[in-house]
């Protein structure tokens, strides 16, 4: 094992204060993620270094230096300010993976406003729920998503301006309250950055729960210490690296490690704005000489499906480190990675609320295939009893995965929902909501979620949100949604539907319901399978019992049914 990654030494030496010093920050002094991503790198004399290599689905490239990043983010901050956007206002990003997405994210932060990234495939209902809850004043988007924004807008009273980044002479006309902005024509060389501090709000990411609507996890500018340090230590980002994070910035991995960590570290990152294809991915590694690759188990399993031949046709000798996040990495995927690339995929564990990696396999650390690894050395994580919150000392005994607060990137609250935030803590621990155990060497082993949230391809989908949307379909009387195990995506959504009188099950209706959910919520929330049933199992108080449906689906014991209606 390389001494640089000696776990015990890192436990002794790695501190958040060390990160503060590395970034040239003073305790209690100003900190702004936007300045650290762009201006600081220029101030260090690395303005001409490439910050972003963007490649679209047709292979066209756009390249941006750190100096470009500084001037273009200044342009965004000035433009938004001119529209009346104030510090702490929420600004939604509803964009494909275009350069404007990455650069406006930083610009919003430099203004001191709160950036709220949204998955561009969200339907109008998902968009409306999230933007209404946050009270967003502006949405930055593209023409292809304008239809959804317009549909949602009548139920978004706080939304003042919609900014369209790809409006051109041939585009359809914009309407009142919509403005075009061509960031390339509005760079500004110098501009003061907002005076934000460690506890100033920065990023608002919505995440799904078992009940209720999605919750907005609010992060602060001080979170950058965790993103920087984990980027340096876990992803091993070094000055000369070419880094590729395959996550979409609509989700937290795509911002913490697809924008903040690499740019604060001053590395060059590659963005591929194209749908999945094995050969295209290998071509991206080959063409850009990617050295560090952060991807997801679902993607790895999709690559595995296509076998080893496509890997062998491409040169991937530039790769020196690979990591994975989003769902447990199965042992087969680790073994396949070794065979395909001669390297280990290093599993990492964290979530929207933790803001940065909390459990991990460090480079150089022996990887136990199937294990999540050990606590990130600068923080304390363990497994606790679900009732008392007391750490479990016994190896192999399952409890709740927990992290000891505070750490810089822990969310500061759920937007408009502090009671739910407070329920995330027990006996002085932050409870992640995942069950796991520790082995005798201190490695974590994932056992499953402690709730009904569906993890599909590394994205959490709330069953309540799907069930509510299903009920809006004219044929649906009752609905339930569960996660069905899937060999590639870990889980996929399966819906159980009881129809209203006058409707009969058919493949046409099944297709119609699937597409209805896809368009209203997102492709991730779309049931991959629909079972038509006479009625759904309920408690005597009328609550649908998902656990029974799931047990039936998995062929497991149904368990206690004494509280059921029939």
């Amino acid at each position, binding site marked *: 094992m390389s001494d640089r990654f000696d776990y015990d030494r890192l436990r002794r030496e790695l501190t958040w204060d060390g990160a503060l010093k590395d970034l040239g920050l003073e305790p209690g002094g100003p900190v702004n993620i936007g300045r650290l991503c762009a201006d600081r790198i220029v101030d260090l004399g690395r303005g001409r270094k490439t910050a972003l290599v963007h490649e679209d689905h047709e292979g066209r490239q756009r390249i941006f230096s750190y100096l470009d990043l500084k001037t273009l983010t200044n342009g965004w901050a000035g433009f938004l300010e001119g529209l009346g956007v104030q510090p702490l206002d929420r600004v939604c990003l509803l964009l494909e993976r275009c350069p404007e997405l990455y650069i406006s994210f930083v610009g919003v932060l430099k203004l001191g406003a709160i950036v709220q990234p949204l998955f561009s495939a969200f339907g109008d209902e998902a968009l409306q729920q999230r933007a209404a809850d946050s009270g967003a004043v502006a949405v930055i988007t593209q023409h292809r998503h304008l239809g959804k924004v317009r549909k949602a807008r009548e139920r978004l009273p706080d939304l003042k301006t919609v900014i369209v980044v790809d409006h051109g002479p041939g585009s359809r006309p914009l309407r009142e309250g919509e403005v075009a902005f061509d960031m390339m024509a509005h760079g500004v060389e110098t501009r003061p950055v907002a005076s934000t501090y460690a506890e100033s709000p920065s990023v608002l990411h919505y995440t799904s729960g078992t009940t209720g609507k999605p919750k907005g996890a609010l992060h602060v500018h001080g979170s950058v210490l965790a993103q920087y340090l984990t980027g340096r230590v876990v992803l091993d980002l070094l000055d000369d690296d070419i880094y590729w994070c395959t996550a979409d910035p609509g989700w937290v991995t795509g911002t913490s490690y697809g924008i903040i960590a690499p740019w604060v570290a001053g590395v060059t990152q590659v963005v591929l704005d194209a749908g999945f294809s094995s050969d295209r991915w290998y071509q991206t590694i080959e063409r850009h000489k990617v050295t560090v690759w952060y991807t997801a188990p679902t993607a790895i399993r999709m690559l595995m499906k296509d076998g080893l031949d496509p890997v062998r046709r491409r040169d991937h000798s530039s790769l020196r480190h690979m990591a994975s996040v989003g769902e447990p990495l199965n042992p087969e995927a680790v073994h396949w990675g070794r065979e395909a690339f001669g390297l280990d995929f290093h599993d990492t564990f964290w979530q929207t609320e933790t803001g940065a990696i909390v459990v991990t396999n460090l480079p150089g650390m022996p990887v136990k295939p199937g294990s999540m690894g050990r606590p990130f050395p600068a923080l304390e994580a363990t497994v606790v009893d679900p009732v008392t919150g007391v750490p479990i000392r016994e190896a192999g005994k399952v409890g709740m995965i927990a992290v000891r607060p505070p750490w810089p990137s822990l969310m500061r609250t759920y937007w408009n929902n502090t009671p739910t935030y407070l329920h995330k803590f027990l006996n002085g621990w932050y409870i992640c909501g995942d069950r796991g155990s520790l082995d005798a060497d201190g490695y974590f082993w994932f056992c499953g979620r402690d709730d009904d949230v569906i993890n599909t391809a590394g994205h959490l989908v709330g069953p309540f949100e799907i069930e509510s949307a299903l009920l809006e379909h004219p044929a649906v009387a009752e609905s339930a949604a569960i996660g069905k195990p899937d060999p590639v995506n870990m889980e996929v959504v399966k819906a159980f539907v009881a129809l209203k009188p006058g409707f009969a099950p058919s493949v046409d209706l099944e297709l119609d319901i699937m597409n209805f959910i*896809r368009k209203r919520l997102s492709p991730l929330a779309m049931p991959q399978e629909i079972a038509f049933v006479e009625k759904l199992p309920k408690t005597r108080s009328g609550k649908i019992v998902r656990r029974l449906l799931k047990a039936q689906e998995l062929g497991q014991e149904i368990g206690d049914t004494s509280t059921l209606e029939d």
Partner: protein
Amino acid sequence: MDDMKQMILDYIRKEYIDEDEADDVTLDENTKLISSGIVDSFSMVSLKRFLEKKYAISIPDGEATPQAFDSVMSIIGLVRRFRKEA
């Protein structure tokens, strides 16, 4: 083949392209569907179900790859293969 091509193109236009963006999207039998992002890998399932129903075939999950669904031409090839096998 022209009927099949038209039916699949119509379905894609109706289900995957927002009416507001329809004017901006060029769609023909060679348009890249998956790699251009018109159809994502999750939504591919509803397209697969549509094909299975419309042409009374069963496409194994292992054959429903992003490559096989990346253009209407390749989808037609897939459907023809499974119709023949059926």
